[in-house]
């Protein structure tokens, strides 16, 4: 069996260094298998998050040879073994220990987003009718497993650290899922512009490239949201109408 050498970041926010581990690689192995084997054999206290091991839960996000990935979906057979494999925690979030980072900011962001608000039920029994095509349109956004790899790779967060002004691609996907939900009647456009910082995104598509669920984040979520914001705040004809209407309402 071939062997692989791993260099894994060990340490916490105060200090850290790469530790080297060598392991035999068996057929079909993924990086997470290797990490868990290293944990069981050589480093019982190696901190790593994982749950489903099947790409459904989004817990085992890390950077493998510098690329943000789910370790459970990263096959060893896709990695060149002649050099050590570098495994690091996500860079954009504060390090807790080893491969585990503090992602709590993400959960706080979500709380501030206006929640789902359905239109009144369509039928007397309190249920709704929807067409499959309308469901299909938002499925893509609801596939998100909250692995936060898109947040990790977004330069607005990673380099510029504008966490207090910018909610990140994950939450634009979340808002797109709400705004395009066939039943939702809430309007989140003002928040998108003012507090969510959608303007900071300059559509470099880094988020789309790393999404393990293959959500076309930039094209299908962020750009349409930008257009909605532009429609509301910058369309001269609509602004005129809005003014007229608000006068009439007075």
């Amino acid at each position, binding site marked *: 069996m071939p062997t692989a050498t791993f260099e894994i970041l060990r340490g916490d926010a105060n200090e850290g260094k790469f530790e080297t581990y060598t392991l035999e690689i068996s057929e079909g192995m993924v990086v997470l298998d290797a990490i868990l084997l290293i944990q069981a054999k050589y480093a019982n206290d190696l901190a790593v998050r994982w749950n489903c091991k099947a790409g459904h839960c989004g817990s085992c996000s890390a950077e493998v040879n510098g690329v943000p990935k789910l370790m459970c979906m990263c096959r060893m057979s896709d990695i060149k073994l002649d050099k050590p494999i570098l495994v690091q925690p996500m860079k954009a979030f504060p390090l807790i220990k080893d491969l585990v980072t503090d992602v709590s900011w993400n959960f706080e962001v979500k709380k501030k987003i206006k929640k*789902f608000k359905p239109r009144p039920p369509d039928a007397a029994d309190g249920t709704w009718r929807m067409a499959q095509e309308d469901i299909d349109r938002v499925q893509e956004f609801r596939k998100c497993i909250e692995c936060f790899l898109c947040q990790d790779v977004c330069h607005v967060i990673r380099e510029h650290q504008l966490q207090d002004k910018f909610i990140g691609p994950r939450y634009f996907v979340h808002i797109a899922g709400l705004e395009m939900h066939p039943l939702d009647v809430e309007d989140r456009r003002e928040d998108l512009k003012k507090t969510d910082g959608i303007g900071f995104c300059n559509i470099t598509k880094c988020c789309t490239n790393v999404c393990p669920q293959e959500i076309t984040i930039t094209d299908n979520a962020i750009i349409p949201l930008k257009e909605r914001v532009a429609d509301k705040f910058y369309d001269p004809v609509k602004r005129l109408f809005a003014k007229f209407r608000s006068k009439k309402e007075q």
Partner: protein
Amino acid sequence: MNAYDTYNYDVLVIGAGGAGLRAAIEASAHGVTVGLVCKSLLGKAHTVMAEGGIAAAMANVDDRDSWKVHFTDTLRGGQYLNNWRMAELHAKEAPDCVRELESWGALFDRTKDGKILQRNFGGHKYPRLAHVGDRTGLEMIRTLQDHGIHQGVEVHMECTVITLLKDGERIVGAFGYERERGRFKTFQAKAVILATGGVGRAYKITSNSWEYTGDGHSLAYHAGAELIDMEFLQFHPTGMIWPPSVSGILVTEGVRGEGGILLNKNGERFMFNNIPDLYKNQTSDNEEEGWRYIQGDKNAKRPPELLTRDHVARCIVREIKEGRGSPHGGVYLDISWIKKKISNSEEHIRKKLPGMYHMFKKLADIDITKEPMEIGPTTHYMMGGIRVDPDTQMSTMPGLFAAGECGAGLHGANRLGGNSLSDLLVFGKRAGEYAAKFAKEYGDGTIDEKQITDAAKWALEPFERDKGDSPYDIQFALQEMMQQLVGIVRNETEMLRAKEHLGLMSQRAANARVVGNREFNPGWHTALDLFNMLTISEAITMAALERKESRGAHFREDYPDKDPQSGKFNLVIKKDADGKMIIRQEPIPEIREELKQLIEEMK
């Protein structure tokens, strides 16, 4: 008060999968303060892995369906050991729970007239599972999570409870640690709901993640609550088996619901060879009729691949044992064959089973639209658990409630696919409601400091040992042993050996040594989890020895038949005054007359 961070809630919910979230939302809606403890990050619980759907007799696809049919299907699937009252409540309340989920934003696939679409599943007479592709669990947990965070529920992420706190016989809180810094937390609560899920980690081949170490079962047992039906552990017939690193990962029953068939190495559709008497009336005996059923023909009977999980798993084991298995020790599950029946089969499969398509492509280099999958049984779901009152979900201890997989009664000897997600909703809601009522009726209990200091001392002992085994080595040994000796096919000799092993392993676990410090240290967490895994392994083994027959998920090769006498009792496990595990038979509660008639009518 003690030196640790202390939180005070009216209701404390332990576990944040579907049942825990639903319970927390309901309790909060009843105007009490709620704390929610989750072992991982929020939204990562095992519910996220559920693929196929939520069983609820909404009759959107087949108008012959009703709660009555769902009720009788559930009892038939559970071989009549189910708590009938729970099965009744479940069948009646599941449709409203699904519709409620929709009103909170969940999006299910639709019928042509715009209603919630329902799909076929094993043991369900009519298409009954509300679903969205093959990621229904994700849709459900995300909906509950996104709704729940706006309900004033306080969430403690990455926090593990190690003991329940008692005031006399009443449960008044819990004590545990948070993973990040390893600090202890004390939770004082007027009522506590356990929603900790299953026990799969005690086995080598499992679809369960690291979290499922039987925490709730064990916490309740050690606090003095009764467990029931612990011999019934579900092995899901279709888990991935190759490559080795993916073995155990779940392959949804939805594959068979969409027309997937099971084949042995000779290409024989072996499920036709053995159709149990209970299901003869509703199972087709030829391929042509089976396919018509899949296509929605109301006059056709369902194909044998859609028999209950216990039966399908056993048939697969038989094929493998008798030398007709696939190269890696499983059998084949084939959905690609439908290309013979429909023209756009590849697109259809990718649309109906996108997650499965993606998973096999990525992890096993298999294109399921073109070739069969290799699969085998995987430890999946615990039917047994904390004994609860069917209406209120309160355990035998005042103030302690249980919902979801760690509670027991609904599923009897075997759970039908799709009945777990509906279980989570129906009984999560009930647990939340009645725990809130309990909290309002009874004031604060008194926290006994000694219980806390004892638990803290116990939890830190592994750090003080300089000899002893690694907790991972003990865990692997336990998993291997339970898989071999108390697995799908059981006998007395092997299980007596398992009992001996468990005794020795308990000693090893009590001396396990951990390295490093308290900060995010999975080795330490595993050392503590071992205590729960060993407790539930002992309970499973004890109950499996005691039930001298084969029924549902429990198969004894030394007692291969169903025994009518054994069908009249449940097995109840409790800790006696000396700390020993004791077991007793308890007659199944007398079923209400009109429901008895219903069962007869539907036979």
